[in-house]
């Protein structure tokens, strides 16, 4: 099946990415006009009917989140675009913001309108300077067209300072408030107590781009791709041992193996040419074996069978010569470096996992590692510590299966 382009503009679109012409050509002006004529309740109902799920990693139903912010009490409300994109192997928000920044920005304007936010923030990864400039230009275009401003919604860009943890929604809010990017305890959720304790809607770039598309068309159009459970398309970041790395847009339900083999997409495994494993979802993701890849489609139900999830859409391919323990050690270093240090299971646990791997004790002390991993999953404050041992556990499980098989 060829690549689909909905989130990413089709190749015949030649207008400048941040121009007024682009706004019209992509249907985003229509999206703004259509939503401007709707009540908050009607906008939220349409998002709910579309079945959009969050694309930042957790796949939380977007409409439900909007409804929660709308229902929360408080005069002042905020909307936030999460463009901190720092997950390993994840570069799809960057591609989206470079190629078509008006989409996500229009999604943010619609979101702000729906929840009654007069002020919105775009929190962008510090290293993304070109992206930031592009976002600024997109805001300027919307300002000139009268969609952004003091009497509608004002949008401000905030730049991160190079911490993966600042992408976690509550740490991001602290960072916007000028505090250390440490996650907050939940509940209360940002929907009721977010920025400066006011109800706050926070969405990933790609989620907001989907919102713009939805309002440029309608629910039926939106649901023509994807599965009944998870409608729409997803941006996948293909990297590693793959002939054609890059960002590809595919519908949910797409066979994972085709991402690797299709000539218009991955075009096959590079390196040795033989697939060893895929790390799906980035550092916080799960390793999938070739037979598991062959057996799975891009949907949450299909992947749950292997304890996997789509996460941010990072799809890292490893050929069969790669020592996955070496990869695990790299991931462990990433988590140890990026832990904010607030809670004990993650602050010390991520360091101990790294040391275990560096000492080559993965197979010698699986029980101690499992106890540690379980405590990190159970007792860490935020998703970083909770998911840091997930890839490790998927390898431990695999080693265990192998030992059991040889014993038999």
């Amino acid at each position, binding site marked *: 099946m060829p690549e689909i382009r909905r989130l990413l503009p089709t190749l015949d679109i030649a207008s400048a990415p941040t121009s007024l012409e682009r706004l019209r050509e992509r249907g985003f002006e229509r999206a703004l006009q259509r939503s401007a004529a709707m009540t908050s309740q009607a906008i939220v109902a349409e998002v709910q009917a579309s079945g959009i799920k969050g694309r930042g990693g957790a796949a939380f139903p977007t409409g439900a989140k909007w409804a929660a912010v709308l229902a929360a009490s408080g005069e002042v409300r905020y909307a936030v675009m999460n463009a901190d994109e720092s997950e390993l192997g994840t570069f799809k928000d960057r591609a989206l913001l470079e190629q078509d920044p008006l989409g996500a920005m229009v999604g943010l304007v619609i979101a702000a309108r729906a929840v009654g936010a007069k002020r919105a923030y775009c929190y962008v990864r510090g290293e993304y300077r070109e992206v930031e400039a592009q976002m600024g230009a997109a805001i300027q275009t919307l300002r000139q067209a009268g969609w952004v401003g003091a009497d509608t919604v004002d949008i401000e860009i905030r730049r991160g300072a190079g*911490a993966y*943890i600042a992408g976690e929604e509550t740490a991001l809010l602290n960072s916007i408030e000028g505090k*250390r990017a*440490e996650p907050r*305890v939940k*509940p209360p959720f940002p929907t009721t107590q977010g920025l400066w304790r006011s109800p706050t809607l926070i969405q990933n770039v790609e989620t907001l781009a989907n919102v713009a598309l939805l309002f440029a068309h309608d629910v039926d159009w939106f649901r023509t791709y994807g599965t009944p459970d998870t409608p729409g398309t997803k941006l996948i970041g293909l990297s590693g041992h793959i002939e054609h790395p890059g960002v590809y847009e595919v519908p949910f339900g797409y066979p994972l193996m085709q991402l690797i083999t299709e000539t218009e997409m991955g075009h096959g495994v590079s390196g040795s040419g033989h697939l060893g494993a895929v790390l799906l979802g980035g550092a916080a993701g799960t390793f999938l074996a070739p037979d598991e890849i062959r057996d799975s489609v891009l949907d949450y139900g299909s992947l749950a069978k292997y304890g996997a999830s789509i996460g941010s859409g990072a799809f890292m391919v490893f050929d069969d010569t790669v020592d996955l323990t070496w990869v695990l050690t790299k991931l462990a270093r990433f988590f*140890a*470096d*990026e*832990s*904010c*240090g*607030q*809670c*004990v*299971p993650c*602050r*010390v*646990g*991520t*360091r*101990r996992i790294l*040391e275990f791997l560096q000492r080559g004790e993965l197979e010698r002390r699986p029980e*101690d590692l499992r*106890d*540690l991993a*379980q*405590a990190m*999953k*159970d*007792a*860490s*404050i935020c998703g970083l510590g*909770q998911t840091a041992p997930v890839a490790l556990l998927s390898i431990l499980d695999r080693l265990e299966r192998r030992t059991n098989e040889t014993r038999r």
Partner: protein
Amino acid sequence: MKNKVTLTIDGETVTVPAGTTLRAACDLVGHPVPTLCWHENLTAANACRACVVELKGSRTLVASCSREAEEGMDVRTNSERVLNSRKVVAELLLSTSKSELAPDLLSLAQTAAADPDRFSGGATWEQPVLDDNNLYVRDLSRCILCYRCVEACGDDAQNTFAISVAGRGFEAHIDAGFGRALPESDCVYCGNCVAVCPTGALIGKTEWTLRQEGQWVDDNITVTETVCSYCGVGCQLNLHVLDNRIVKVTSPMDHPVTHGMLCVKGRYGYEFVQIEDK
């Protein structure tokens, strides 16, 4: 809103005022949960995670120090997952910091049957003692990063904001700003951070010196109550006396005026008193 909520803790039903934390509710039914960073007079930092309990329907365990009781909650304080987390938290802390002066950590380690060696052998917080002023010493190799000192110095008590957490991950540590020595920092030496530190990482200079010399004997210390005479606020002072010498001044955490917090004169002015006496 209802002002009472009813929940189940380890199978026992209990009704508590709305806004009660799970930790307090567990206390009420006589199934207390261990805590390290929680302190009665400070905002819950929920950083140590020793107080986690299992809440039916929740993917992860929840920190009972900061989670409020809700109608119909089903809580377990002694499930296998809870016991594992407590034990691992104790073991991780024992593997990084010196614990002889940390009674809460030692008792957690004991009740959780922690094996101090299980996760040891890697990086630790061993570091030189910071002895840069005459009033208190910072021995951060004992620190468990409970945030108590930061909160006491901040808007929970002192409002000086002289110290904060700096660095991240395993390198996160208590810092007076850019690694400065205390005399160069904003510290006003109220010693309120020292009063709430649960590990001896912040310790009065006199106590630290006597401990170094092997002269500090807990059993030989008597405590005399008095009221501070420097100003008219009426702070209660507990003078800890060893061999006829005041070696430490504290104030009770439940005292209605001080809530355990003092200023530099009350807490460290005793040397001056003793010199005058002579």
